[in-house]
């Protein structure tokens, strides 16, 4: 049986910041969802089903908070679904929601992802106390620093690559009014002089801890066609994929994870992409520490293994480059963990709809959204385009 076509017809996000003390968790998700519905020119009653995603419930101290949020998200009498796939969850949530349309079950689905990290201490929440296992790291940076060190050794990348990515993303973030970090005075030197947190990751090369939410409205073909007819271009979903692999497995390569490569190959096949570097106009990928940009460029097939850092050095991934990456400023500027994946997916959709404002890539017709989570083991991707698949 054929899958139904599905498109993004509305996108909304909150203003992200370290502490959104002005709103409750319910207020935060409602802010993003209201904006997505307004963008789609819909109201709460138009929505058939709601899919909620976030990372661990301990971050806010509410168990299965979608139960609490059903009311704020207008889900009374509707199906409400909750996804949790670690850091990739924002992406997975959009994919689970899109499947409800692809399967022909619903016509209009609201997907919402959030994290309100000011309610707790995310760094220690991510330092998992696994029973009977000695604690080996403090925060996600402590976990990923050895992966980056390994990448630098294998690729021979010079030290300044991580700094260049951080500078680019922070400068892009200044163009995004919703971004958490706006640092117009940041410079190559100020990043290099910032404190070394987890060698080789400096303070200015790591993501912030944010409060924020993102929402997308997914519509069936008839819904998207109607939006297009009214001059609101949909972002057609041309491919979706998820892959998972173990945390602890001797076969794994955490620098170039097989799961990430298979996930990318799957979405490209669905979208008819044979040369991703040529066929894709821009990419939003999940880069919580600057060095992950060259690593993911290789994992997602934009560069050969060991060559990704050269794209960074040559300015290919800059906003005015040949393959812009993280036009929004990315995770390095904004990281409400549960929402971070959906923010990537949403930015990709905004680009192909031509609605990304000052961080719009001219003529973007096809874009990739990417998210990862756990110990580089959970992957979610979509390819969106201006053309109906």
């Amino acid at each position, binding site marked *: 049986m054929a899958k139904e076509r599905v498109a993004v017809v509305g996108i909304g996000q909150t203003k992200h910041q370290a502490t959104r003390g002005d709103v409750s968790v319910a207020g935060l998700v409602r802010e993003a969802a209201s904006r997505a519905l307004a963008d789609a020119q819909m109201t709460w009653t138009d929505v058939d089903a709601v899919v909620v995603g976030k990372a661990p419930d*301990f971050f806010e101290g509410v168990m*299965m908070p979608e139960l*609490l949020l059903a009311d704020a998200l207008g889900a*009374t009498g509707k199906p409400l679904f909750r996804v949790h*796939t670690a850091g990739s969850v924002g992406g997975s949530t959009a994919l689970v929601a899109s499947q409800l349309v692809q399967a022909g079950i619903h016509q209009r689905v609201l997907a919402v992802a959030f994290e309100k990290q000011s309610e707790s201490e995310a760094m220690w*929440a991510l330092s998992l106390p696994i029973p009977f296992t000695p604690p080996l790291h403090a925060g996600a940076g402590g976990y990923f620093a050895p992966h980056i060190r390994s990448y630098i050794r294998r690729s021979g990348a010079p030290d300044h690559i991580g700094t260049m990515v951080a500078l680019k993303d922070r400068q892009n973030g200044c163009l995004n009014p919703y971004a958490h970090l706006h640092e117009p005075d940041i410079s190559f030197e100020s990043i290099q002089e910032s404190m070394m947190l987890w060698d080789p990751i400096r303070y200015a090369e790591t993501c912030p801890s944010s409060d924020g939410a993102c929402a997308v409205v997914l519509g069936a073909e008839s819904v998207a066609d109607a939006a297009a007819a009214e001059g609101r271009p949909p972002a057609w979903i041309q491919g979706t994929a998820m892959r998972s692999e173990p*945390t602890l497995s001797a076969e794994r390569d955490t620098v170039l994870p*097989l799961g990430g490569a298979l996930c990318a190959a799957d979405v490209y096949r669905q979208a008819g992409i044979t040369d991703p570097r040529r066929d894709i106009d821009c990419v939003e990928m999940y880069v919580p520490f600057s060095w992950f940009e060259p690593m993911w460029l290789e994992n997602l097939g934009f560069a050969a293994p060991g060559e990704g850092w050269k794209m960074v050095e040559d300015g290919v991934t800059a906003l005015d480059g040949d393959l812009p990456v993280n036009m929004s400023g990315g995770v390095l500027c904004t990281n409400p963990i549960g929402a971070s994946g959906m923010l990537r997916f949403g930015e990709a959709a905004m680009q192909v709809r031509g609605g990304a404002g000052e961080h719009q890539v001219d003529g973007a017709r096809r874009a990739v959204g990417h998210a990862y989570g756990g110990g580089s083991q959970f992957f979610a991707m979509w390819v969106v385009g201006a053309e109906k698949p």
Partner: protein
Amino acid sequence: MRDVAVISVAQTPARRRVEEVNEVEMLMPAVHGALGQVDMTIDDIGFTCSGSTDYLAGVGFSFVSTLDAVGPWPPIQESHVEMDGAWAFYEAWVKLQLGEIDTALVYSYAKSSPGDLPMVLTRQLDPITVGPLWPDSISLAALQARALLEAGKVTEEQMAEVAARSRRAALDNPNAQLAWDRPASELLTEEHLVAPLRRSDCPPITDGAAAMVLAAADAARERVDRPAWIRGIDHRIEPIHLGHRDLTVSASARLAGEKAGVADGPVDVAELHAPFTHQELILRDALGLADDTVVNPSGGALAANPMMTAGLIRIGEVATRISAGTAARGVAHATSGPCLQQNLVCVLEGEG
């Protein structure tokens, strides 16, 4: 919709406390049991989906350790819901509808024993207005039972009959935790635990796990003689605040039942996820079950109530009876949230 069936079901024996193994080790016999019944391994599975909650495990990302033990190498297509496994089952059914894969593994598990479950569940409530009062899950259910009694919709005698019938049925269920044969009249002489609920009106606290394999169309027919076909499935939610709902009915269960097509044929067997006796009576009414429908032949959640899993087990109990040929058409129900806030209904049938 594409024909999708349950082709194998496995669960661990429900126990008050599983102390000698961790959650991962507790789950593995269920996963390997479900796969083994149909001579499959994880390599034969197109999509894997699980349900669990970090709040009971006491650690963030608890499902990650479990997935490691399932063996996702080479990398697999997989997802996780922070919900009862019945919703993981729903996601797997949706995934199978897309026509790209033919098989799915669903599992869920929880250990409630390390904490004080009724207190832990208060963390689901509004953290500003309700949570600080620590209203435990039994007290909230008692409010619902009181509303039913005062509305004249049920009697304490009817509730005691549910308690007695469920535990008597559980005598035939080797996986049950609480099974006995005592008349309802005797139960009514018990003191109230939280009035109007007696201890016999309440579920046990359980550690346990379950798993099942789903397959589409021919992939199901070639593996088992009598697949349990999913003929309808739907889920609906209501606001969490008790003051926003009429607690004496379940509008969301009624709607999910209508969408799933419960009324489209006779119901031989129904497994209802009703942790408290009065909730079975609400659900029977909401789903419009006839008097001759056999309800909870397994003993239901009153005989074993592993969190995140008791809903998935209801689907398994109905599927097992259909595959065994003792029922032709059945209804399975799962619930989540305080006082039946969220409900899922699945209609299963045998061939033709």
